[in-house]
């Protein structure tokens, strides 16, 4: 018989007592822990675990679906107004040259008050931010008629605001931060508008006669941007240039016939943004530059082929400001929603164009939530996301800002004869020097009583057109006795 190993030996009496104490303590600890858990669960009942899956918001029907194109149902209604013989034009988004700058013989009063600037006429509009265009004594504005539930391209007299004609087609639009938000493009022969739900119409600008129309959703599978379309159409050499998304990235349409001259395939599936198309020329090539949902593209004006593209600039929430050319192949991009700014440099490499980022600016340095900056005399002017007017040079150095006491929210601005007109959200119009030296306000006046005065301004013949959410005014900014 062998001796049991030491490890199998039973503990002696003191050892057994120790074991008992240890076991009792352990059991006590477990009991206390159980009590604590029971107490906590009873006082803090656990939420049942629910997986967060798509579709839990119970989204209804396809948000983009439209039954049929309403353009064929359009109607022209004549009004009592007549065109004026006032001089000057502002042919679409950002004026005659598409740069937001007015230059001409107009005198601008530098001291306001006592009826300066005088309100010459005003007109009620449906809720929105659509800006006006001016040509040959007529004002064109794309309105939304809430009563008739229709987009209405209205032609008003520049003299008194009376309606000359309106062309409307039925579209159901609900208020979603306003309804209308695009500026028509007008030439001697054509006026083209793009509605909130991507309906394009081309009319004869004097008579209002319908020439052709497109339903970009139905015809090209475009997706209506969130908060409705903000792209202002462009007319170049008698052709409408439209950024689409869906089946086509960009279209060139002959305004006279409505025939599509070229269509750029949308190989990356980019969606339409609120940005408008910029025409520019570099290295002997004419092109159209556009910021889609996935990046920036330069499309040949000749055949619609893609000359260059980059994914270095995309804003997930909304791309609104239009790119601006600042010379030597540089394109300045500014955005809101924390995007800041980006300077792109176009270069020709082995016969092909490429776009490379030169520098970026933080949103606190410069950006543009809604209004496109202006490039004027080698400097960039714009309202930053914090609402301050700011000026920077082409190297991205911020030269000045208007300070915390001079904020303009999402309001529009333009430069006229070396002066900046800048409107704030509530209709307070400020005149300041357009100078890189500093922010020098000259005078200001409340010209609108409503809110959301965000529509781009238009200036022609010494008359400034501005609007808030529901009302447009025509102001005499010359201060001259009439």
């Amino acid at each position: 018989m062998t001796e049991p190993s030491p490890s199998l030996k039973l503990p002696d009496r003191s050892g057994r007592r120790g074991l008992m104490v240890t076991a009792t303590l352990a059991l006590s600890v477990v009991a206390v822990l159980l009590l604590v858990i029971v107490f906590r669960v009873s006082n803090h009942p656990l939420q049942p675990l629910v997986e967060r899956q798509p579709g839990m918001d119970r989204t209804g029907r396809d948000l983009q679906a439209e039954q049929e194109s309403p353009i064929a149902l359009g109607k022209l209604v004549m009004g009592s107004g007549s065109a004026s013989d006032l001089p000057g034009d502002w042919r679409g988004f950002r004026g005659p040259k598409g740069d937001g700058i007015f230059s001409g013989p107009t005198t601008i009063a530098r001291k306001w008050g006592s009826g300066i600037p005088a309100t010459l006429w005003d007109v009620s509009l449906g809720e929105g931010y659509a800006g006006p265009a001016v040509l040959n004594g007529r004002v064109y504005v794309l309105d939304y008629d809430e009563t008739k539930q229709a987009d209405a391209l209205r032609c008003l007299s520049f003299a008194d605001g009376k309606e000359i004609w309106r062309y409307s087609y039925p579209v159901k639009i609900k208020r979603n931060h306003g309804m209308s938000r695009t500026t028509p493009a007008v030439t001697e022969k054509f006026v083209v508008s793009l509605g909130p739900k991507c309906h394009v119409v081309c009319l004869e600008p004097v008579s209002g006669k319908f020439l052709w129309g497109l339903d970009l959703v139905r015809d090209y599978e475009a997706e209506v941007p969130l908060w409705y379309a903000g792209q202002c159409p462009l007319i170049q050499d008698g052709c409408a240039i439209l950024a689409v998304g869906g089946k086509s990235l960009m279209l060139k349409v002959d305004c006279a016939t409505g025939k599509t001259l070229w269509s750029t395939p949308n190989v990356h599936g980019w969606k339409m943004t609120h940005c408008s198309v910029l025409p520019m020329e570099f290295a002997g090539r004419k092109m159209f530059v556009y910021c889609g949902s996935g990046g920036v593209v330069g499309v040949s004006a000749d055949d619609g082929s893609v000359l260059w593209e980059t994914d270095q600039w995309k804003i997930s929430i909304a791309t609104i400001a239009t790119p601006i050319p600042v010379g030597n192949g540089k394109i300045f991009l500014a955005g809101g929603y924390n995007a800041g700014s980006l300077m792109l440099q176009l270069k020709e490499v082995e016969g092909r164009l490429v776009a490379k980022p030169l520098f970026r600016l933080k949103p606190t340095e410069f950006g543009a939530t809604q209004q496109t900056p202006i490039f004027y005399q080698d400097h960039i002017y714009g309202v930053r996301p914090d609402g301050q007017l700011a000026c920077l040079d082409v190297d991205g150095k911020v030269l000045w800002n208007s300070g915390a006491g001079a904020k303009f929210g999402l309001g529009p601005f333009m430069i006229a004869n070396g002066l900046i007109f800048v409107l704030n959200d509530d209709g307070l119009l400020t005149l300041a020097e357009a100078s890189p030296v500093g922010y020098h306000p000259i005078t200001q006046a409340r010209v609108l009583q409503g809110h959301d005065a965000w529509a781009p301004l238009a200036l022609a013949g010494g008359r400034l057109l501005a609007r808030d959410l529901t009302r447009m005014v025509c102001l005499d900014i010359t201060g001259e006795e009439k």
Partner: protein
Amino acid sequence: MNRRNFLSGSLRGSLMLALGGVLGAITGRAKARNTVWQIDPFQCTQCGRCATECVLELSAVKCVHSFDMCGYCQLCTGYFEPDPNKLNTAAENQLCPTGALVRSFIEDPYYEYTINEPLCVGCAKCVKGCTMFGNGSLHLQIRHDRCVNCNECSIARACPADAIHRVPADRPYQFKSRERKS
């Protein structure tokens, strides 16, 4: 000074101090009873400390929603991550770490956003998104069904914006609204 004078002076001083202390305590308690802690939503910088600094394990601070200021947007910057894959309710698209912000379709193109309070930890992620890029309708408030009204609020001590103050107990909330936007 003899010993008798010293002792009587010390006794008088001690009594005065005690009386002052009692009066101070009574006044302080009365003040605490009549006031409660609250966040001024216009001073709040959405730093996230409300979620972690409260003495309660689940903070007394919750997100609240002023519906009259909301745009009922399809793309809510308080609900969605900055660069969502899709505008749907999948967890990866949501900003809220606990799923406390609930999105419900109303009609094209409107969505309603409500707060499931038991899930809300007061982290302010949704408030930051809404304030920076939206209408600012989501904001933080101290919920008085949870707040224990400490004499010295530990969140107020940590608040970098000094946004938490005592307010009259009969007006315990400072909600945002269309009328009160700043």
